[in-house]
């Protein structure tokens, strides 16, 4: 029989249900069975004392890699799922990429099977939009949907206009949301935002027009096809403006932004530090401010980690030759709370952007903590102050521009389907549910 838990005395913040108050949660059979009034028989349940802490729905990370790049041949690494639950994330959507094409039901089943076996967080495959991501033939989207792919996308591989039109038309038959990355490849030969910093560093820039033009095309195709399009990883004020106008016109599209684009700009790139190398690039500080505003106004609904752990010696290469990407599933929540403390985001909107809003794009009742919902949640000590030390991370990626930053707010417990999968015991990470096959 699955373990029963009582999480007592915590401040329950559940934007999906408009809840923000101190409450006790009773958990049994993988579900939240009661809030406030504990049912009979719960006296024997394990108690997690959350007084002074916050209880949030488990975070839903729409974009995080579940294996480091250059890693051994594997679909999912235990280290990255440990990182996810240590960051309070209970559901991760893994995008298709080179080496993990996710264009067959078998691959989708395999990814879910492997992740389930680990006993950490849920992993939902994002199905490939085209076979082998090659952009020449549609994938069997309906089959992929049946195999558990709740979203479709072509990763970061660009798709030609006619092919994208076909894919959106087809996905609309099955109400499958399609994730699009927005960059016109011909305009994106650089490695950094095109502006004063790129000129000073002598690095080839990527103009915001590369994003704006791609967003423009895909908004037009969303209108044409009626497909549910999700714009991933927006970086510029220009793109936000297009998106905002389209939404005002009633187009039912959604969008996300990576947490680092809300906190950093190209002005932060010093000394050719390749930890700042990401795609799309960190834009101007005015773009950063526009993105925060867009999240505040729900023009951009979702914040994700865009966790991209890299192994090995990428720091030993010149900036332009390093692989872009920032690891950050473990720092997403405290960085989000930094945005709240500095009054750039209200707490409720910030929590919704990593719980209810991304869950809306997925099936089921994730991202909320009503009675009857899956008991995916995290407990957060909002006062705990700690320095970000990548060498202490669960993730094998150490590539973060936030190393050394003093963070506030730390996940102390994470439950997935009513199982305690992560506990921070006096600074020591414990994974009580981790399968013995993954020591």
């Amino acid at each position: 029989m699955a373990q029963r838990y009582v999480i007592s005395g915590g401040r329950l913040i559940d934007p999906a249900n408009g809840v923000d108050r101190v409450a006790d949660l009773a958990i049994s059979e993988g579900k939240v069975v009661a809030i406030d009034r504990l049912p009979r028989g719960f006296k024997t349940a394990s108690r997690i004392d959350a007084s002074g802490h916050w209880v949030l729905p488990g975070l839903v990370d729409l974009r995080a890699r579940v294996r480091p790049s250059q890693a051994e041949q594997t679909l999912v690494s235990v280290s990255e799922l440990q990182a996810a639950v240590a960051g309070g994330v209970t559901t991760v959507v893994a995008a298709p990429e080179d080496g993990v094409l996710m264009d067959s039901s078998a691959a989708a089943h395999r990814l879910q099977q492997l992740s389930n076996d680990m006993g950490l967080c849920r992993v939902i495959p994002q199905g490939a939009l085209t076979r082998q991501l090659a952009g020449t033939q549609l994938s069997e989207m309906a089959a992929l949907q049946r195999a558990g792919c709740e979203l479709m996308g072509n990763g970061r591989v660009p798709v030609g206009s006619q092919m994208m039109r076909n894919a959106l038309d087809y996905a609309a038959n099955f109400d499958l949301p399609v994730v699009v990355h927005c960059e016109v490849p011909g305009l994106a030969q650089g490695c950094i935002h095109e502006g004063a910093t790129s000129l000073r560093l002598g690095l080839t820039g990527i103009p915001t027009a590369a994003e704006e033009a791609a967003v423009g095309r895909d908004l037009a195709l969303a209108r044409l096809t009626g497909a549910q399009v999700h714009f991933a990883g927006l970086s510029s004020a220009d793109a936000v403006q297009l998106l905002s106008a389209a939404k005002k016109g009633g187009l039912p599209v959604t969008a996300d932004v990576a947490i680092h684009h809300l906190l950093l700009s190209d002005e932060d790139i010093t000394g050719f530090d390749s930890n700042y190398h990401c795609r799309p690039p960190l834009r101007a500080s005015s773009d950063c401010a526009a993105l925060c505003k867009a999240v505040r106004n729900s023009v951009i609904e979702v914040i994700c980690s865009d966790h991209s752990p890299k192994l090995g010696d990428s720091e030993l290469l010149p900036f332009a030759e390093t692989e872009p990407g920032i690891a950050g599933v473990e720092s997403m929540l405290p960085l989000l709370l930094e945005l709240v403390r500095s009054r750039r985001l209200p707490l409720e909107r910030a929590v919704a952007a990593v719980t209810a809003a991304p869950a809306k794009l997925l099936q089921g009742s994730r991202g909320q903590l009503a009675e009857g919902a899956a008991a995916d949640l995290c407990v957060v000590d909002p006062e705990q102050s700690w320095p970000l030390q990548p060498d202490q991370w669960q993730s094998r990626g150490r590539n973060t521009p936030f190393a050394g930053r003093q963070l506030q707010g730390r996940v102390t417990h994470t439950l997935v389907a009513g199982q305690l999968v992560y506990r921070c015991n006096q600074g020591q990470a414990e994974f009580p549910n981790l399968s013995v096959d993954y020591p």
Partner: protein
Amino acid sequence: MTTDALYQSHQQIQYDHRDELHHLLTTEGLRRETCERIFALTDSLTETSAVRKLPVLRGKTIVLLFFEPSTRTRTTFEIAANRLSADVTVVNLATSATSKGESLVDTIETLQAMQADMFVVRHAQSGAAHLIARHVAPHVSVVNAGDGCHAHPTQALLDGYTIRQHKGQVEGLRIAIVGDLLHSRVARSQIHVLKTLGAAQINLVGPKNLVPTEFEALGTRVYHNLEDGLQGVDVIMGLRMQRERMAGGVLPSDREYFRYYGLTEERLKVAAPDAIIMHPGPVNRGVEIDPALLDSDRSVILDQVTNGIAVRMSAISLVLSRSWSVET
């Protein structure tokens, strides 16, 4: 002058804890007194017309690491290091291990075993010299001999020295830099040196494709019309036009470029009467500059070449004299 985080980071990596020049990577963040010390040293070296071999760097090893082909810069560094009595090794890496996937820093660590005191580095990627400087042992210095489109500090210093030689000082001068600014490491380094030395005005001149308006953030003025940019200037610095730009679709042809942006005696009429012409070489005659102008009295291009050796001797000895004081 911009003294933001990037500027300060350039300063931090180049100076040691006693504020002495440890690496010479970029002219951004380089202090005015450092530039002037290099110029004063150069003066003393050029006082005697034939520079003798000086024993100052006897026992020091300087490794020239050229990941990119170069004749002029490599030769002048080699001569400069030899005249200072250093042991010089040239490692031509343009076609060796690094092109087989060995990372830059692995290469450096291998070369560390050579017990070099200084690496002079040329690399096709911006930031390569910074990367090497971050990874070498604390007693080793790095001099950037050109990294991607980013910086070429010794070229800019010798240009500054040549201007000072002909105009007395850089302070208060109006200077035009003409050509492909976007891809020029030389121009970027010139801008910072000239600003540091107090130039009154720096005009960047060329077609919009090669001179983005964002350059004005560096405290310069951008002109897309040659006559406007040359108005009243005391110094005109031409840049080499890479012919790949034409093939790459950035510009239509040599001919059309020369017609609108080529430097000719006629176009120079709007400049100050005693304006001098400079060029880092090698020159594409008839593309960026009229051959007649090259051979005129205004041209100080050969002085630049001559000063190249003495300025590099000064820069090398200034950087390496830092480690003498560690020992004594």
